[in-house]
């Protein structure tokens, strides 16, 4: 309970793009070829060093399958970063990226840092999504972009490192500005972070009804 300062990062993307394996590669350096589809959500933590500061990351690995994710809103609660994963060998997973992006915009914090991750870069011969397409798409939507392979661990570390660094930079710059409290994840400020969207959503819901 002593260390209460950490960042929540969610992993989202279509079923089977390799979210769970990205997570296990990053947190436990494991890879499982025949892993089952995730039910609900799984958690893992890891600390990394950014500049001189240790950043603790709590990563939520969410289910990609539609039937396992009715409570989507719960997954984005308090998330400051999101890895939107697609499979470079499957065009459809890339096509769905827009849908995921929309979901993020709907449910997550407005300031959430999003990174587009093209996973399974080891499957070069099966590539269906050109790197440039994805890169352009990311640029258009102001996302970071990286291609990874959980299998041979290419860029996995880098992806998490990058997103966490980015989050850190934003947070620290915001803190320097001393401005908007709502968007900033600060020591002891996690409570307001999720209260605000809750209030917004609640009013939206009642209004709808």
């Amino acid at each position: 309970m002593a260390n209460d300062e950490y960042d929540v990062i969610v992993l989202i993307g279509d079923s089977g793009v390799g979210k769970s394996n990205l997570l296990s590669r990053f947190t436990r350096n494991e890879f499982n070829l025949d892993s089952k589809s995730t039910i609900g959500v799984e958690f893992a933590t890891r600390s990394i060093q950014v500049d001189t500061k240790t950043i603790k990351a709590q990563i939520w690995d969410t289910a990609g399958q539609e039937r396992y994710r009715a409570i989507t809103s719960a997954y984005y609660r308090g998330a400051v970063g999101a890895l939107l994963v697609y499979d470079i060998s499957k065009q459809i997973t890339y096509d769905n990226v827009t849908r995921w992006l929309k979901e993020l915009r709907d449910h997550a914090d407005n300031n959430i840092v999003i990174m587009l991750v093209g996973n399974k870069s080891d499957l070069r011969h099966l590539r269906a999504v050109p790197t440039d397409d994805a890169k352009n798409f990311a640029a258009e939507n102001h996302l970071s972009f990286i291609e990874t392979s959980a299998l041979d661990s290419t860029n996995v570390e880098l992806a998490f490192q990058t997103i966490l660094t980015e989050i850190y930079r934003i947070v620290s710059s915001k803190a320097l500005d001393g401005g908007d409290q709502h968007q900033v994840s600060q020591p002891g400020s996690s409570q307001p972070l999720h209260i605000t969207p809750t209030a917004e959503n609640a009013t939206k819901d009642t209004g709808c009804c």
Partner: protein
Amino acid sequence: MTPTQPPKAARYSMPAAKMELMNPIRIAPLKGTLRKPGLPLEIISTILEYLPIQDLCRFARVSKQLQEMVYDDSRWVHKLKLMGVWNETEARRRFEDAMRRRRAMQAAKAAEEKKALQNGVKTLNAGMAGGPSAPGVSRSSTLFDAGEEENRAQVQREASMRRAELDAKRRTVAGTITDGIDLMHLAPLTPVDIPRPSMADPDSLLKVLPSVKSIRGFAKHEFGRIYAALGPLYFDLAKAKTHTDPVVFRIYRDPEQQAQILAQLKVFAQCDTAHGWMDRLERLNLMIGIFENAALREFEGGYETGDIDGRMKRYAGVLILLNGGQACVQLFVQKHPVMFERGELGNPMDSFELEHFLPLGKPMPGSFSLEPSSLFFTRLSALLNEQADVIDRVFPATVNVMIPFLERVAEDVISEFVTPILDEAHDRDIEQYLKAVAGIYHQLLDFAKTIKKIKGSGVRFPEEMMKIMGRVFEAHVDLYLQDELDFFRKKCETEVDSWEKKILEEDAATESFFMSNINREADKRDFLSTFKKVILMPVSVIPSPFAAKPAAAAAETKSTESSPYANSNTLSVQEIPDTSRPGTPMTPGQATPGPPPTTELAAKAAIMNSRLEGIRSLFSLEVALNLVHSAKSSLERAALFTGAGGQTGEEAREQCEQIFIALLQVLGPRHVKAGFDKAVEHLSKYNPREITEHTQSGVAPLVTFLELVNVGDLIQQMIDVFYEQELVAAKLTDPKDFLNPAAKEKKRFEQMLDERVAAGLNMGIDVLIDEVDHLFAITQQTTDFNPGAIGDTGLRDFDIGPTKTAIQVIEVVSSHTKLLTGSTDKNVLDVFNQEVGIRLFASLCKHIKRQRISVDGAIKLISDLNHYHAYITTLKIKPLVPYFNALRELSQIYLIDPSHAKQMATVIADPNRFGGIFRVEEVYEYATRREDWYRVKKEVERAMYGIGCCIC
């Protein structure tokens, strides 16, 4: 006579005429037309059977029809058959040959006849005219062929006749009396057209019987030949008053020839069915008897003087020619010195003699020795092989002397030697007796192998030999087998009894041990792997010396100081089955070759000791090994007799099965079952609340029980190996025969074990779940799932792993299920695991319902449930997965922010989400466990039932 009649007449005089008698209609006209009122032809024909030959010939002269009747071939075939010189197959073969020739000839003849018909010439085959049956053109083909055959024979005969006449002339010149006798007796008897060449040459006479040919339609002539040769001698012999009278002995001076002719006469006498045959036969037998006696006397004389190659050999030959030589074989065997000199071969009491020389004359029961009997057999073997040479020299290869001789030796010498030993041993000590029987039998078999095969002994000699040797022991086998079984059973029972008594005394100590044992659970799994390495491996890898190694491993429990690990290592290196009683503690000296025990090994040893100590109060591997070992020795002894074959072998085999069954019965119901029952009882008494310490992941009685299952499994494997090795491999039992008592008993034993295991597992699951429930109750903190409850609201735990409780529960469950792996049937294990999983699920559900869960706490709960789920997936039991999937799904409802009541409602109301494991009401019930339930309840219910909407 019309040409059609002869076949009819022939038919009536056939032996099958009796069949014709049944048909009076066919007989009646014959009677009326052909004969004056008198006897029917059939009866006449039958009467003819009893006429002496010369009367038969006279009878034939009466009329053509009667001649036909007398000359009928089957009559003579019958006589030849009486003498046993008619060979039906040979006759048939000749007949078929003739048929083939005839067909060829007929074809030729048909062509010829056609030509003849054209020429208008009617001729008969000249050769045919010479036949005795006066064949005509219309004759049946068979007779025609017989005529053909006859023709050729006639030519041969004439040739030999001429030769014989020449001989006879020479003899007449020589002035022997042979011809005189010939003229005197044979002239009136033999048909005129049959020559009497045989008498002319006494030497050819000797071979008259073997030279008989079996030709259909030609039997009369063959018989005539025999009769001419042997008839006179036979009747002369029958009339003789003393043994000097008969001509036989005057014609033939040579004993061999005399024997030969007498043997022929004996055969010839078989066809003598005429009046007074009994007297003649008696006389003949008397003469033969006199002759045999004389020959035997000569043989005996030769025997006594040791004239092996001379008189013995010669008269053995004579007697064999006469009647197979049984008499002289008997004499040889009876008179053999070995029968009377058996005392010199060894005194049966020598086997026990040793004890008298023991200090202070105190007879020790263990002083029986097999040495003297071995010596005895060696001597006897040498003697017999010497005799085998003699037999080889004296008797020709056609006579089997060795077997009767060995029979006699076995009966008179070996039996006389063996019986007192066994009786004495039996009186002294049963165990000694059992050893003596097996030992001596083994020696006997070895002895049998040393006996040389002689040329007259035939191919089946070794089998015969074994049979004879088996007969020696026949009388003892029954008693022995019974004793063996009784002894074994008694031994087993005493073993188990003494063990039980010992345990009873130690019971109090072990009870307390159960309580104290709990402190060392941490090393349990470690121990089990060691246990498997040390004990299981040798059994499965090297099956035969099983008696020694696990025993030693069990023995290690006794020797606390020496390193058991080192011990077992040494033992697996030396692969010789330990013949000494297993279970005796190894001396430290034996243990030294192993690697020096490190502290870790010592620790392992200590654990092993304590562990086996705990199991020992239930049942003992050591006892089981002792039992198996004594069963093995008993079986090995009894199995010797299965080689004897026949009834004895069969009985021995059955007895072997009985021993195995006895082993199972003692080991099963008496020993193992009792242990299991006790373990289950301990289990049922277990109450987690009464035990203060729960720091370690084990339930003592359950662990004990599970290890008991391991040991039980070990014993079962041992029994299996034993069965395969000792019974199946030794062909003592048929594994495919499901009705076989041994296989049945083995199955029953396994079944019993399975049943006990199942019963215990059932109890074990209860205990395990009790323990889990207990853990839930005492270790789960309220703050685990509701971190805000205490008041320190602002903080969230960064370490989002599973809670301590979950880790502990999984550890308890997995450590116990892992203990079972490999020790019991896969199916049983699966059922057990599945049951454990489902019960764990139920416990978890109950547990969750007892908690208050906040949104933050949900992360913890989800982590816990993920942890359980991960464990369940390792079990690889499909049916369990949906339950734990549903739990994971369920846990999501706690994660939903209170503001999203509508979403919550969707989740609760979606039964598909939980795969049918939870109903909507149940999910709702779980939802009420939310820390903020009363705040969101209204919203959720409105969303669920739509009530709120209407109000709004």
